[in-house]
């Protein structure tokens, strides 16, 4: 309960600071929308020259992309830990975080949130409904619940991977550029995995399971039963990855010595 109230206090503080530069906030929302539109335009233009992509139709690919946007929006709202090493370890901010009576990871999440990214959820849903109506998909009573489950799974996978990477900084505080690299690898999950070769497919499924943020869970809603096994694995993988990451984080915090000021 205490955690919930802290969260809302931080959120309201955050809103105040963001509304200070209102015109910039509008431009930023617009640029987010533009960013999401770019990939959509890419898909649309490409399908002007081909009818199927490894057996997936244009609307299916658009649907997968729409689904991907939702967990990605949640991830980018709450898990901006890509500069964790620089900001918290090298600059010594971690010392401040550790002296406070709430879990260090939770603090960093609420300190670094970017709530405006949540608009991606709306964009994603809009894209999915458009593609779904084109495909003639029907909603069952359990679909919304499945959707929440799949989105939670996808978000946890994204969060888990990045928290694991952030935890590495507890062991070595040298600067690595592994985070931006991961952002780029994450984009592979926006397309069906069967377009890649075996090795990449394996990596995207078991090692850096970005396929569970896009194509696998989306396959469930598209009714492609050959992928159902993977689709239902999504929440499981999410739980596994977030558990590993929290464990790694806690181990790392025990080891934290401070960078010295």
């Amino acid at each position: 309960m205490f955690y919930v109230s802290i969260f809302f206090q931080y959120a309201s503080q955050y809103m105040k600071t963001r509304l200070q530069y209102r015109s910039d906030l509008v431009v930023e929302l617009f640029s987010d929308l533009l960013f999401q539109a770019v990939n959509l335009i890419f898909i649309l233009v490409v399908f002007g020259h081909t009818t199927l992509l490894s057996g997936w139709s244009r609307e299916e690919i658009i649907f997968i992309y729409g689904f991907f946007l939702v967990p990605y929006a949640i991830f980018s709202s709450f898990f901006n830990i890509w500069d964790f090493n620089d900001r918290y370890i090298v600059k010594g901010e971690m010392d401040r975080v550790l002296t406070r009576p709430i879990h260090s990871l939770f603090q960093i999440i609420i300190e670094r949130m970017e709530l405006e990214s949540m608009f991606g959820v709306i964009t994603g849903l809009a894209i999915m409904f458009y593609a779904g109506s084109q495909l003639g998909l029907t909603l069952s009573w359990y679909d919304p619940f499945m959707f929440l489950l799949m989105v939670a799974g996808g978000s946890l996978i994204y969060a888990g991977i990045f928290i694991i990477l952030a935890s590495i900084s507890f062991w070595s505080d040298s600067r690595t550029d592994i985070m931006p690299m991961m952002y780029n690898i994450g984009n592979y999950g926006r397309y069906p995995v069967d377009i890649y070769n075996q090795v990449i497919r394996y990596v995207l499924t078991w090692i850096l399971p970005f396929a569970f943020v896009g194509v696998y869970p989306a396959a469930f809603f598209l009714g492609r039963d050959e992928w159902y096994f993977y689709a239902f694995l999504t929440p499981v993988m999410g739980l596994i990855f977030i558990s590993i990451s929290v464990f790694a984080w806690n181990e790392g915090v025990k080891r934290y010595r401070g960078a010295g000021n």
Partner: protein
Amino acid sequence: MSMYLEMLRIRFLMMLAYRTNYYSGILIYSINIGAYYFLWQAIYGGQESIQDLSIVQMTTYVAIAWMARAFYFNNIDREIAQEIQEGKVAVEMIRPYNYLGMKTMQGLGEGLFRLLFFSVPGMVIVWLVFPISFSNDLSIWGLFFISLVFSFIVNTQINLITGILTFFLLYNTGLIRAKRVVIDLFSGLLLPISFYPMWAQDIMTFLPFQAISYIPSMIFTEGFTGSEVYSALLLQLMWSVILFIPITLLWMSARRRLIVQGG
């Protein structure tokens, strides 16, 4: 002039000090090129060519577009925005050089560094992994490098405009991000302009963006042939000249309304 060259040299040496950061950069670009390579493979499927580009040309196009980006890309828009916000620009304005010229030189120093230490080794790695064809015609290479110089000029001019706009907007991160997205899409980095539907191509003819990535990449992959190359280069030259006008006007009015935000 020597002052500007000195600035270029200093920036180059600064980058040299941090060169280890670039190995991961090459990897990131290779990851991106890889993603698009598989995507284009799937898009082509069984097709011989799309819009007169074969799959090998397309792969080459993707690779060279990304590696060229390392040269023309710079963050001077963000640097200018930061200097304006921190009030440093007031000091810069009383110094005995042209501030924008200096910024351009810094961008060029970075660009040259990345061309030598990033694009060249990166291209070799990409060539080992993906099927890419290099032209053995030296004149193609020459024209490509001329085109690359223009793409640097046009991109830097757009960056200067974005940076100067901070004077009027005071806070500029959103616009800078939006600009980057627009350039990635309309410059031809992600998609050759000729793939777009006709109505979109017609609109883009009147925008400077294709001078940034599409033209050098098409020259390199020999997607442009004969007179097409020269008219493309002329188009780049035209934009380089035209874009001076808004920069000059914006800069003149910006100097008059300098607000130092704190500091």
